């Protein structure tokens, strides 16, 4: 049975969980992993690995400029904007 480090997963998703939620979601995630884990029991001898189920390759576009969207319209979706920039909490690293 796959194990779930609920604190690590919560941190990766940048969400805070209560202790009760941690118990609840741990169980749910374990169920999901167990469900998907059925795949590891399938005999894939002789099957080529693939990242896609559809045999489609080289979906490419020409390097041709298409109009962008007006800055005012784009910034309407920003919770906060100034100087035509999307304003975000101060980035420190």
């Amino acid at each position, binding site marked *: 049975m796959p194990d779930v480090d609920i604190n*690590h997963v919560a941190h*990766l998703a*940048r969400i805070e969980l209560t202790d009760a939620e941690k118990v609840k979601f741990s169980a749910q995630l374990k169920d999901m992993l167990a469900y998907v884990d059925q795949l590891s029991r399938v005999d894939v001898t002789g099957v080529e690995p693939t*990242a*896609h189920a*559809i045999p*489609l*390759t*080289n*979906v*490419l*576009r*020409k*390097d*041709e*400029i*298409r*109009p*962008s*969207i007006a*800055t005012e319209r*784009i*910034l309407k979706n920003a919770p*906060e904007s*100034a*100087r*035509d*920039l*999307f*304003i*975000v*909490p*101060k*980035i420190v*690293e």
Partner: protein
Amino acid sequence: MDFEAVIGLEVHVQLKTRTKIFCGCATDFGAEPNTRVCPVCLGYPGVLPVMNEEAIRKTILAGLMIGCDITRHSKWDRKNYFYPDMPKNYQISQYDLPLCLGGKVGAVGVTRIHLEEDVAKSFHFATNSGVDFNRAGTPLMEIVSEPDMRTPEDAFNYLTALKEILVTGGVSDCDMEKGQLRCDCNVSVRPVGQVTFGEKIEIKNMNSISGVKRALEYEIPRQINALKRGEKLQQETRRWDDDDGKTFLMRTKEYAHDYRYFPEPDLMPVVVDDTMLAEIRRQLPELPEARRHRFVAQYGLPDYDAGVLVANGALANFFEQAAGKNPKAAANWIMTVSEITTTPIQPEHITELVAAIDAGQISGKQGKDVFAEMLAAGKPPALIIKEKGLAQVSDTGAIEAFAEQAIAANPKSVADFRAGNKAALNALVGQVMKLSKGKANPQLVSSVLAKKLQGS
């Protein structure tokens, strides 16, 4: 105990395409903030990225120039992390099937080249930060080297050679002022003779080739001194501050990212077939090293001149158009102005200038004045020579008249010359030059005078 450094580099290079990697937004530099954006590069839900064919071709071209194996079946993956400059909360990159594998730049091995998308540009203010997404989605090549370098100079030479190759191939302009070439560096130190590597320390935020050299010149002694003091180094990420000239700790191993790569479901794999590979191979330019050898062999240039010219592809092209009958002289003029290709001077003007000097039409000294005027006004040398009345008088009749005047006026110099003092001729040449207002061809003057004095 003596220590040595082990250095590997990860270089990010913006590809020279007109549009972004997954959408038709333009990639031109310097546009007003958030004017080159659309739902795709802003990471809106439900949009579909479509791969730019030119980005694939340019990456493969880079791989061919570096001698990589081209992956015939390549795919893209999501690299998951949160950062305000990454609108989707994942970067589309290549994890296990990069477009190019293996290769070499000089003596340094190249591990892989993969194609990914660039992130946005952030601006930091007192209480918050601002994000401009114009750069987000610009096609970016990541070129990962083997840990084959040992000194800051090795790293500098590798990056310089890599840049030369990419610019020559038209893959990228590698303009560091515009952030088109950026570098992360893995460096560790170990006692000389030890086979295993020391603790790997990553340095981020180096935006120029000379910055990488400076960062390593700081970081390598820092690590060696720490070991000599008996400290233990640990795997960590540091940030280079070019103004302070120091590296600072960013994060230790415990806080390393967990990227959870998985295949990008929205992009289909790319299969590079023989036809596509042959087409790209036909675009392969002459590589800088081969071009340097050819400049020496074909034009008889010294190694130094060939190196200077080839280091700047545009300069080398200019030279080839200007070489004419005296390539070395053309190279000398061209190398005096490294930005000559951005001046109004045309290559054929250099050819004409060299020819005018070689034919004795103007002196070398006058050539300098003509060259200065060519730089300023972009006029052909013949016109400048005419306008300035610089053409040397090579008309023997006129020179003979001046010579006779000079002989008549300077009996002492004449007597000295006839008495065997050859240097006395120079005084007479000087007189003739003066009479001709500097326009007489000095070689001709000298032979006319000598003939007259010896003949009579």
